[in-house]
């Protein structure tokens, strides 16, 4: 069938490995005129169980981001708060409840919420506030405290399934990941060993992250020796339950240049959602991530992502998702990301470092905060300040991506030094 519009436009030209060019799709009408920069970043520790409340965690991250940007709360004109399901905290409208910790009192304040995609959606939301010309300084905070939800925060996810035709079957959240991973593996003839390597790489990278919760030196054998929770998913291929927060300060061009010599520009943003009839989708390929990426690349002037993007922080709540998302981001051929990974292409010192932070598999997965943590990592990497985690070669452009809801959200941000 031939349809006009975003679903079929913009086919990737050139299937070869050497940086295929992208035919742009006209997803955006025009490039935004006002530039937006990241000028500060902050984190709390990521933990299995924090004594600290969600407000306290948010405060730690927000205060650190403002401190590094050299500003105070009174300078902040608007606040974006990203936090995922209310059911984790047992507090309805928790976005408003967390307001105090996010520095949002008596400010224009908004909650950014697309499930697991919220972290990167938060910078997109903050970007719109600054790019529109409404504000010059905006604080973006991501927070999650999953440990509150007992006996297991998975309970909060049971209600994402359709009440009439899915919930009577007794689903849990692991099912959809396991189903997607099996479809991905079956479509391209991949082995579980190929997938497990993501856990090994990211948990090792996280050894250099001071906030990390589950950093560890492991082998593929260790990962596959951990128990099967929902075949093909083993326990060590799942990110942990986490508490934590992360924050960014966004500024307009003039203000950014006054605050820092090294602003990191938000060059492009994109997001897209696919149908909630998830059984009707191609589970082997995240087309909505491709759409989101193409929109962000077009805005950023990226025509050859494999050449022009120097590091990536794709969303990795499950090991296979990193690979799945790299393909959606056009940074690997369909079904070939595992091969690239095995060859070391995605190592921190490889040609395209992927999750040099340690990602969700290593640093932890406080849902909305995890996406913001990825953006913090791009900020430090692109400024050349990442220390023990610094990727070589003075990277000039990076991409962060998050994913969520009923496996249907792609949120993408391209950050760069120019």
């Amino acid at each position, binding site marked *: *069938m031939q349809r006009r519009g975003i*679903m079929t436009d913009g086919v990737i030209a050139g299937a070869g490995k050497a940086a295929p060019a992208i035919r742009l799709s006209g997803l955006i009408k025009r490039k935004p005129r006002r530039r937006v920069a990241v000028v500060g*970043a*902050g984190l*709390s*520790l*990521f*933990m*299995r*169980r*924090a*004594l600290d409340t969600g407000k306290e*965690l948010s405060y730690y991250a927000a205060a*650190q981001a403002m401190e*590094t940007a050299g500003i105070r709360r009174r300078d902040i004109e608007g606040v974006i708060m990203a936090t995922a399901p209310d059911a984790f905290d*047992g507090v309805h409208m928790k976005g408003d409840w967390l307001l105090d910790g996010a520095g949002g009192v008596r400010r224009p304040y908004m909650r950014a919420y697309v499930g697991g995609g919220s972290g990167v959606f938060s910078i997109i939301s903050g970007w719109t506030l600054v790019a529109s010309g409404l504000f010059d300084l905006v604080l973006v905070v991501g927070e999650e405290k999953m*440990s509150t939800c*007992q006996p*297991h925060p*998975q*309970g909060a*996810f*049971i209600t994402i*399934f359709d*009440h*009439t*035709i*899915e919930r009577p*079957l007794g*689903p*849990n*959240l692991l*099912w959809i990941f*396991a*189903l*997607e991973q099996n*479809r991905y593996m*079956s479509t391209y003839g991949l082995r579980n060993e190929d997938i497990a390597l993501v856990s090994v790489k990211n948990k090792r990278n996280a050894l*250099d*992250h*001071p*906030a990390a919760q589950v950093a560890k030196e492991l082998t593929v054998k260790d990962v596959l020796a951990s*128990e*099967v*929770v*929902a*075949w093909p998913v083993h326990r060590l291929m799942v990110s942990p339950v986490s*508490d*934590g927060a992360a924050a960014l300060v966004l500024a307009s061009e003039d203000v950014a240049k006054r605050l820092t010599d090294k602003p990191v520009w938000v060059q492009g943003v994109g997001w897209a959602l696919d*149908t909630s*009839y998830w*059984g*009707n989708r191609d*589970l082997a390929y995240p087309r909505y991530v491709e759409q989101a990426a193409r929109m962000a690349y077009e805005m950023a002037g990226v025509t050859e992502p494999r050449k022009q993007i120097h590091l990536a922080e794709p969303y990795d709540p499950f090991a296979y998702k990193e690979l799945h998302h790299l393909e959606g981001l056009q940074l690997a051929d369909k079904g070939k990301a595992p091969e690239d990974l095995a060859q070391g292409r995605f190592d921190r010192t490889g040609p395209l470092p992927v999750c040099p932070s340690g990602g969700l598999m290593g640093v932890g997965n406080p849902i909305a905060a995890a996406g913001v943590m990825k953006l*913090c990592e791009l900020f*430090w990497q692109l400024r050349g*300040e*990442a*220390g*023990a985690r610094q990727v070589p070669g003075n990277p000039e452009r990076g991409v962060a991506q998050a994913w969520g809801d009923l496996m249907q959200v792609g949120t993408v941000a391209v950050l760069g030094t120019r």
Partner: protein
Amino acid sequence: MAKPAARPPRVIDAPPHLPMRGRALSDDEFHRTTPTVAWTPRLEYGWDTGAAIGRFLDGLRGGKIYGVRCRVCGRVVTPPRAFCELDFKPMDEWVELPDTGTINTFSICYVTWDMKPLRTPQIPAVIEIDGTSPRVGFLHLVGGLRAGSVDAIRAQIGVGTPVRAVWKTPKEREGAITDVLHFAPIDGRRKAR
């Protein structure tokens, strides 16, 4: 308030180059110091089926699986819906589908939602019902296998295995997705690949 020891700070030359804040609790500390409140909200939801799913469920009660067709995009989809979400117009016709299909993907799940082990695994699957457009499926369960281990189950089913619905008896059916107990491999045609 109890004062558990903070996690010993890790000295790493990497950002954020500021002291990391947050006090991690061990499992033991959490259970000793954090009071939990079990709260069962007294909520009841009257979920309407809507027009399309209502007719689908009526079909299940009668032992039939229905889909719908959109003549603009040409898709035949199930579960049925009142309108085509791509062409944004009403669906054009109802289609009676066979109760056979293929396994698009499956998992073998050994834990409950609260991570308690399951001795007999659940086998959720996306089933592509015959007669629908490619890669159109819905969530259901695979059953009827006499096997419990990953290897034994994978010896009997795989992606592409043809399956048939195993129904409750007509008397037991109530117009619910569970009127189909599960899908079972069609005998003699076990594993496609």
